[in-house]
């Protein structure tokens, strides 16, 4: 059963099309993360699910109910805003109980729910404070508490951690993950931060320019990006994308010549549609790059910059005589130094092949 079903949903503001046909099914209890660059329409999609934004076409169902044209409160969603959106003149407990009070819930029920939310979020000591007497992290916990007291079918989070500093962000991320485990409700979480997406999500929805690029588990998307956009968006540092050209294609066996580099043979699933002479892109993650002594490797390169991150080393490599730079993530024991003349070796099983259409070609069982 799917708790949130989005079918062919579009959104236009005036003449500008912002959401260009989105289909999604989010099962009950799932933690789904919408991730994508700023301005791609994540918030708009989330706000359409909440009912705060009207839907231009398509349908949205929550549970079995078509909520496409319903007012916000009837969808059974609760939203946590990036700006917290706490009522400044109310105490923490008044903030959490406001909606229930306005809707005439019995006093005992209100107290029970506020107490429960305060316990889950460790807000018991703060119930009488005003928002301005709270730290950023505490404010966001109150905002989450305000969502919890409503017992919503679906929690919606719009970049809830963006206003927090880095260390608090990590801490709140863990708290939100714990919250999901504890109450098990469906949650949809919007972020432009791929680390938040990778760490929190059961499933990630990658959005770009109003369209879904790919949906899958974090590992799925990391290991098998469906296209150049997803490949480049997830992973830090991002995947290296190299120009290459099909040297020969014989059924599923394809050999590809990397510009300034070696000829690589690999096996692609049938229907790859690549022909000899066709340009392609090769993707390789920084941690799949091996540095070898010059002469033994496949592609000569010079080490330009080295960044030490403690447990690992990021090396920026330049191919001699070209403007192209390649980023490698190496063990700290690699001993790489600026100015080293070396050669790049590819771990062929970890190569990704993209056609000129930007779509990935499926690799078959890797024959080293």
């Amino acid at each position, binding site marked *: 059963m799917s708790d949130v079903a989005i079918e062919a949903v579009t959104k236009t503001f005036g003449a500008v099309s912002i959401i260009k046909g989105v289909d999604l099914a989010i099962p009950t209890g799932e933690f789904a993360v919408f991730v994508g660059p700023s301005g791609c329409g994540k918030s708009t999609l989330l706000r359409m699910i*909440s009912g*705060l934004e009207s839907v231009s076409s398509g349908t949205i169902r929550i549970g079995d109910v078509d909520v496409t044209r319903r007012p*916000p409160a009837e969808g059974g969603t609760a939203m946590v805003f990036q700006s917290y959106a706490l*009522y*400044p*003149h109310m105490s923490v407990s008044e903030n959490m109980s406001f*909606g229930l009070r306005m809707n005439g819930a019995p006093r005992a029920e209100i107290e029970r729910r506020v107490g429960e939310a305060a316990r889950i979020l460790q807000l018991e000591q703060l119930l009488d404070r005003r928002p301005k007497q709270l730290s950023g992290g505490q404010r966001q916990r109150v905002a989450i508490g305000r969502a919890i007291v409503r017992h919503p079918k679906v929690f919606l989070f719009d970049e809830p951690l963006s206003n927090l500093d880095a260390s608090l962000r990590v801490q709140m991320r863990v708290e939100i993950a714990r919250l999901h485990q504890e109450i098990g409700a469906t949650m949809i979480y919007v972020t432009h931060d791929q680390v938040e997406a990778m760490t929190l999500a059961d499933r990630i929805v990658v959005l770009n320019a109003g369209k879904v690029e790919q949906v899958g588990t974090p590992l799925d998307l990391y290991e098998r990006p469906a296209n150049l956009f997803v490949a480049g968006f997830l992973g830090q540092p991002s995947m290296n994308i190299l120009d290459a050209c099909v040297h020969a294609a014989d059924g599923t066996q394809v050999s590809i010549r990397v510009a300034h580099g070696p000829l690589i043979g690999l096996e692609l699933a049938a229907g790859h549609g690549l022909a000899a002479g066709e340009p392609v892109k090769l993707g390789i993650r920084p941690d799949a790059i091996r540095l070898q002594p010059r002469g033994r490797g496949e592609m000569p390169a010079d080490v330009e910059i080295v960044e030490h991150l403690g447990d690992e080393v990021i090396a920026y490599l330049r191919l001699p005589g070209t403007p192209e730079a390649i980023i490698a993530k190496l063990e700290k024991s690699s001993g790489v130094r600026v100015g080293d003349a070396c050669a790049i070796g590819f771990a062929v099983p970890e190569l990704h092949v993209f056609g000129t259409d930007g779509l990935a070609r499926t690799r078959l069982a890797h024959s080293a």
Partner: protein
Amino acid sequence: MSAASEHKHVGDGWGAVTFICLTVLALLFLAPTIGVLLSAFKSTRDIALGDLWSLPQALYLDNFAEIFANPSVRIYLVNTLLVTVPATAASIALGVAAGYVFAKLPFRGSDLIFLGVVSGMFFPPQIILIPLFKLFNALGLIDTLWPMILIHSAMGIPICTLLMRNFFSTVPNALREAALLEGVNEWQILTRVALPISLPALAVLATLQFTWIWNDFLWPLIFTQSDDKRTIMLGLVSLRGQYSVAWGVQGALSIVASLPTQVIFLFFQRFFIRGMTMGAVKG
């Protein structure tokens, strides 16, 4: 270094000039006021002998006694309250409603309507004096308090709408949206969220409108005839006719007449500066 310090000196020079100018202006403005205030505490004889600014020879309170003994004064004060309180409340209520719609529920063309409403502020009331007189005459409301209540309510709308719209615009949309998602209706959002946050704006408006309407002279002069329909400002002037040149009594009544506006100011000014939105949203 020299450029900076020179600049500072120039600034100081101007500061002194500004200070002197302001002091002179303040004195010019205060002098007659002080004169009137002093005469409130002088006997008629005392007034006739000394000049306007001479100190009273003894603290003389009979002027006040005379005012409080005069039944007309009580009627003037009650009439003024009967005009000022409803008109202040009505103009603020209408401004709040219109301002909320313009700020939070805009519709096609609402910006244009807003401009139209606000431009009413720049409309000299004398232009509509005769049509208004004919209107209220036709309605049979001449020599009642209604024309003043209605006119002040209406003429307060532009300034109240402008101020409330601008204040509501600073109330984050996310607050309204959070409330909507919780099933809170628009009226509850206005009264339980937007208004409590907007206390500073309400306090400014209440003070402004109350003072303005309380001190009005023009409209009561036009629309009232009988003594028991007069407001305090009109009464203040009419005292002269009753008691030849009653400077002392007039001074005393001036003090009494200005008390309500002073009280209103003192009561509301503590809300003026409060930054109520702090802590609502970050950044």
